[in-house]
């Protein structure tokens, strides 16, 4: 504490920080938060670059009359605004360092921030999401449109076609960008369904115990001891494949593992004082479960969800491999790979790049999941 600055110097530093924060990330950088500062800076730089280099396409938003252009435009402007906002905000926070109150979530976030890999995962995901939202500005091509096939098919990766072209001469980079929307949407919605269902069933099962528990858990056992892919194929064969069907089926078949985790947690929470107290107050079971118990099991559920996301993207790819996923010409990562299978020897890029996209995304989700696990579970926190 010997070199702690006096009030005046502190005021001064605060002002210069605020000036520096006009350039996103600079303030953070100046205060020694290298990683955070640089990445905020890079983010803002990328957005500005898109705005500058793809200005024609950005302007086309007003004439194209297409929803994804508007989404991209709002992402772009919103991203820039957020970058500055964050920069200002963090400057403010930095100048008041140490005064923030430490809620449970804030502690977890601080813990999470320490895990560099987890933060990296978060960045990967942010970049990926920005890229898919900004897709119309990032690529001059359309994902499903093709021209002279003979002249454009199977071009190797080049500056014009970053990931080459496929058998119809469609730009693989574009398809990977647009395919990300489908793959990520499938992942998020399906996980949403399965987590909600799993939490509800697990909590009910654990809280009530007895016959309810036995019946529900036998059902969970049944679904878990069944090879998942087989179940999926059997169900999909029943209906016409569509994106909605894939999402619903994945969501409805993946909840048992969440239910098991939640039930385990609830079993131990059930006898804790605050639950006993709530019960003594005469609160109803739904209220106790959803107001008092569920918030306390959210940690493991969030972890399970982030890991499940990666898993679902892999499963979707597997289904595409069997020809049972999203129908053409809509691109999903799985069916881009599937379309490149026969051409693997001659045109390796078609199946390779979407494969790498899957790998990177699943990595991101898993890094985040790991980070969350470490930070949400007090037992795993770093000792220092």
């Amino acid at each position, binding site marked *: 504490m010997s070199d702690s600055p006096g009030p005046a110097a502190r005021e001064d530093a605060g002002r210069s920080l605020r000036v520096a924060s006009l350039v996103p990330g600079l303030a953070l950088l100046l205060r020694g938060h290298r990683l955070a500062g640089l990445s905020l800076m890079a983010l803002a730089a990328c957005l500005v670059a898109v705005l500058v280099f793809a200005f024609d396409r950005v302007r086309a938003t007003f004439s194209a009359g297409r929803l994804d252009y508007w989404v991209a435009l709002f992402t772009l402007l919103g991203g820039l605004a957020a970058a500055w906002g964050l920069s200002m905000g963090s400057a403010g926070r930095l100048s008041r360092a140490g005064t923030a109150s430490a809620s449970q979530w804030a502690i977890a976030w601080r813990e999470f921030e320490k895990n560099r890999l987890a933060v990296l995962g978060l960045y990967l995901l942010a970049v990926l999401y920005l890229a898919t939202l900004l897709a119309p500005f990032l690529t001059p091509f359309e994902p499903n449109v093709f021209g002279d096939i003979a002249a454009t098919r199977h071009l190797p990766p080049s500056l014009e076609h970053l990931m080459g072209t496929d058998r119809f001469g469609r730009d693989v980079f574009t398809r990977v960008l647009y395919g990300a929307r489908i793959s990520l949407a499938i992942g998020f919605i399906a996980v949403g369904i399965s987590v909600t269902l799993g939490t509800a069933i697990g909590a009910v099962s654990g809280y009530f115990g007895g016959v309810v528990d036995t019946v529900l858990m036998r059902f969970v056992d049944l679904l878990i001891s069944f090879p998942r892919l087989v179940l999926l194929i059997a169900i999909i064969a029943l209906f016409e494949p569509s994106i909605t069907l894939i999402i619903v089926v994945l969501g409805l078949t993946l909840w048992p593992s969440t239910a098991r985790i939640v039930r385990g947690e609830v079993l131990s929470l059930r006898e804790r004082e605050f639950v006993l107290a709530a019960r003594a107050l005469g609160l109803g079971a739904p209220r106790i479960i959803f107001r008092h118990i569920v918030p306390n099991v959210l940690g493991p559920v969030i972890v399970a969800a982030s890991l499940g996301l990666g898993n679902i993207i892999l499963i979707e790819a597997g289904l595409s491999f069997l020809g049972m996923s999203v129908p053409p010409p809509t691109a999903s990562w799985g069916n881009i790979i599937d379309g490149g*299978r026969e051409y693997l020897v*001659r045109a390796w890029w078609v199946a390779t790049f979407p494969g790498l996209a899957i790998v990177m995304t699943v990595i991101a989700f898993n890094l985040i999941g790991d980070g969350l696990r470490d930070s949400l579970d007090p037992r795993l926190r770093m000792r220092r």
Partner: protein
Amino acid sequence: MGGKGAVDVMHRALITSLSAVLLLSGCRDAGDRSDREESISESQRYGGTAVVTSLNEVSSMNHFASIDETSQELQDFVLFMTLIRYDKALEPEPYLAESWDTAGSGDKMVLTFHLRDDVRWHDGEPTTADDVKFTFDRIKDETTAYPRSALLALYDSAVVRDPYTIAFYLERHPGFMDPWRTIAPMPEHILGDVPPAELKQHPFGSENPVGNGPFRFVEHRSGDRWVFEANRDFPESLGGRPYLDRLVYRAIQEPTTKLSELLTGEVDVYIIVAPAQTAEIESHPEARIITYPNRNYAFINWNGRLPFFSDPIVRRALTLAIDRQEIVDVVQQGLGSVATGPVPPFHWAYNEDLEPLAYDPESARALLEAAGWIDRDGDGVRERDGVSASFELKTNPNPAREDIMTLVQANLADIGVKVRAQVQEAQSLGRDITSPERRFDAFVLGWSAEFNLDDRPLFACSALDGVYQWASYCNPRVDEILERVVLMEDRAQALPLWYEYQDIIQRDQPYTFLYYDVRANAVSERLRGVEMDIRGDLVTVKDWWIDPADRR
């Protein structure tokens, strides 16, 4: 005349491009190989193992059970003997039957086969007329549920004259010999006591089949391989034992895996090469590609019960708007030719002078306008009487057909017709299209045409409620023609009718015929004596041989 010329050119172009492929592969080290081939004497050719791979699992060696191409080829050419074979001109030649004669008058006839007396089942029993009669009787017995019982629909009964002579009583019809090319007689002394309803699932077919052909059964490991070895007792007058010691069949699904196995020498024959891989295989000296036009064609079936598709003009416009040559080039890598109708080029009645409709989106638009399909609300999709020109195009999971859908979708969007592509699992698609309600708009599928063509189930009015009349197409003249040609033995007399049939189908477009398939198989260079044609991939398997220096 001009039209004819154009067709000829197209055909010649196809043929030359194919023979160029063959020449290239043959030429690479042709001198080398043929020199060696000369120097290897007949007696040195015996020995070695050849491995054949294809997509499909073999369902059974039991002729009563199987219908898939691979099983049938293994039965007809490898393990069993059919009564007759086809020569290259598709004329019958003796095989198990040494000779045959016909008698009778009017529309009844008697067909008598004189069998060889030196053919034995691999367990030592002689193959006799009783085996043929047993097989015939089981096929005619409804409880057997022999899949292709239609082959013998006009056959009435069989009488064994002596152990090696059998006579069939039948109605006179063209192609009456054709069934005996594919029906392989089964051993009565093994299967005679099996109740007909249980014949299909009898373990004979998959665990211990006993044949009488050039190869005998060694083992079958489920999902892994079928192994056959040379039958040393095969009649000398039919060329004696095959050159190969062993023949192995393996099913491998993944194209890249098959390619890798072929080029690294684990597999000698790769049947049905993915079109995308032919160029790669050509570039390797270890293997060559053999191509031949086969019996398959691809088509789009329009549901004629829907208002949009019920109009022949609309169907014609749709065909005109689809760039079928591009489909052949992109999807088949040139392995195919644009189709005109349901009679493929291999068939004797194929009309070479009939020119396929050319790709012409302009005329297509004009036809649609004329038929009243106009885009009035400017959304890019035509409509008439409140019905919009948009439909769902389906297919089963199959890379080529999915690609066809993608191209068709783009083509039709150009003329203001909106297509939703849908891939549906094969069985559930099958249920939808065969259901009496015809629950579909349109779909892409393929047929394999028979040597003895009978299109009544596809296009006859009488079959409208049948399982295969997917187009719901009815034209009395077509009915008349189809009914008559299946009974006309004289080809010269039938030919005009066949031509007229092709003309009408071309005009009415119940299907949009996409292309006639050209089969590409890859063969390892060490395997010699391989010829493949419309008769089958394994048709010369008995004459395949391997250079002693190259044997594994």
